[in-house]
């Protein structure tokens, strides 16, 4: 925190978070601060804990020690006394403050594109169906799918499904958006349309943490890049610094070299 250039507390404050799956430690004392409006990209080899970290932020996964705060509020555990998991109701309310977009889209197949977006608005935000529909149509328009409001997910391409996935997350008005390898399951020609949506959200000032293998996009769109290796933060800094070929972090250099080699 001493390196923070402002006095405004971070929107997302991850402090010393550790987690093990059985004997395998997947997160080792990870700390990470994200300021309002920042776009932070997490890169690293598979198994480095990137996705697990993201899933801890909205408590899809619990963690063994440390603290994760959004806007000053502890995410998964009660603030007082012993470390105690929040109630189901509290957890649901906390999760509604973070949006998440998944690698495999995870749209609800029995609901239309608009229905997917409206579910959280009506059941969690308490909007009327008419209000929710208006909001859903607004966000579908934003992701270029106004004409697909009444299509079922199975009738949409992968890129369109993922754009609905993004619209579903942002329509809830989250404080922070988590993007978990959202283009990894897409055909290459569909990646661009999804990244374009993310870019426009970034321009609007949406705070985002994304895990991605799209290095070019990470370089252009993020304010900071975090490199994770073996469950810990191995390097962090502005894109130009992290993605420089001559970095003196050996693990990062190997990762980037291997990455470049495999993407030609």
């Amino acid at each position, binding site marked *: 925190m001493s390196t923070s250039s402002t006095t405004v507390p971070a929107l997302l404050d991850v402090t010393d978070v550790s987690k093990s799956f059985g004997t395998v430690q997947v997160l080792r004392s990870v700390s990470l601060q994200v300021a309002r409006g920042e776009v932070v990209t997490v890169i690293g080899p598979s198994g480095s804990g990137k996705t697990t970290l993201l899933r801890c932020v909205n408590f899809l996964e619990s963690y063994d020690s440390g603290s994760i705060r959004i806007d000053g509020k502890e995410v998964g555990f009660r603030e007082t006394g012993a470390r105690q998991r929040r109630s*189901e109701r509290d957890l649901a309310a906390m999760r509604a403050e973070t949006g998440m977009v998944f690698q*495999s889209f995870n749209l609800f197949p*029995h609901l239309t594109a608009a229905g997917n977006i409206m*579910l959280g608005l009506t059941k969690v935000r308490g909007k009327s169906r008419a209000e929710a529909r208006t909001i859903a149509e607004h966000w579908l328009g934003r992701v270029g799918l106004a004409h697909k409001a009444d299509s079922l997910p199975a009738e949409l391409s992968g890129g369109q499904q993922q754009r609905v996935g993004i619209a579903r997350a942002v329509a809830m008005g989250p404080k922070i958006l988590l993007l978990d390898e959202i283009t990894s399951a897409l055909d290459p020609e569909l990646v661009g349309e999804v990244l374009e949506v993310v870019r426009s959200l970034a321009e609007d000032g949406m705070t985002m943490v994304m895990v991605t293998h799209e290095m070019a996009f990470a370089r252009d769109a993020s304010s900071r890049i975090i490199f994770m290796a073996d469950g810990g933060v191995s390097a962090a800094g502005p894109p130009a610094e992290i993605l420089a070929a001559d970095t003196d972090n050996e693990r990062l250099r190997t990762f980037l070299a291997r990455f470049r080699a495999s993407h030609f």
Partner: protein
Amino acid sequence: MLIQIAYALPFLAQGFALTLWVSLLVVVFSLIAGVIMGVGLVYGPVPLQWAVRIFSDTIRGIPILVLIFFVYYGLPAVGLHLPSFWAAVLALTLFKTAQVVEYLRGAVGSIPRGQSEAAMAIGLTFRQRLAYVIFPQAFRRFLPPWINGVTDAVKGSALVSLLGITDLMQAINQVIGRTYEAMPLYVLGALIYFAVNYALSLASRRLERRFSFIRE
């Protein structure tokens, strides 16, 4: 001969009504109990999962006839005296509940984990996730085996005649006892059971089609 049978029809109709009544009670009770226990099996804490697992495996390993006699003749030994009708309903319900648990586990288990996670991520509570995301999708997979189970319940209800309850089966036997017309009466009984179950299968197929738009 036909006149004798025609004369017995109101009596048979009473038996048929009782068959339907027993079936309906068993189907409704087992659906409620089975869904609750099935949710416990899939989502509950480990001790609850174990309890449901043991219940389901035990019940499904016992012949239904043994279960009926156990409830009627066995339970009085521990102070639980049930009238024959309710003993029969309880035994059939236990049997059916164990099956509903398995249908539910199969149907809910077939929904990808990502569906629950996406529902969590937008802030739905556990009950909301079940009601709006999991059950609507699981329904299509739950329905065929369940309707099959309902037809089994209608057929299985004939066993209550063994406790002296005058259902369709028992009514037929009594009329045969008076008229000695076994063949036509059993054919008539078979046709009635068949008509009920065939109608159920038709309804099931129609419902399945209605929900076939859900693709993963």
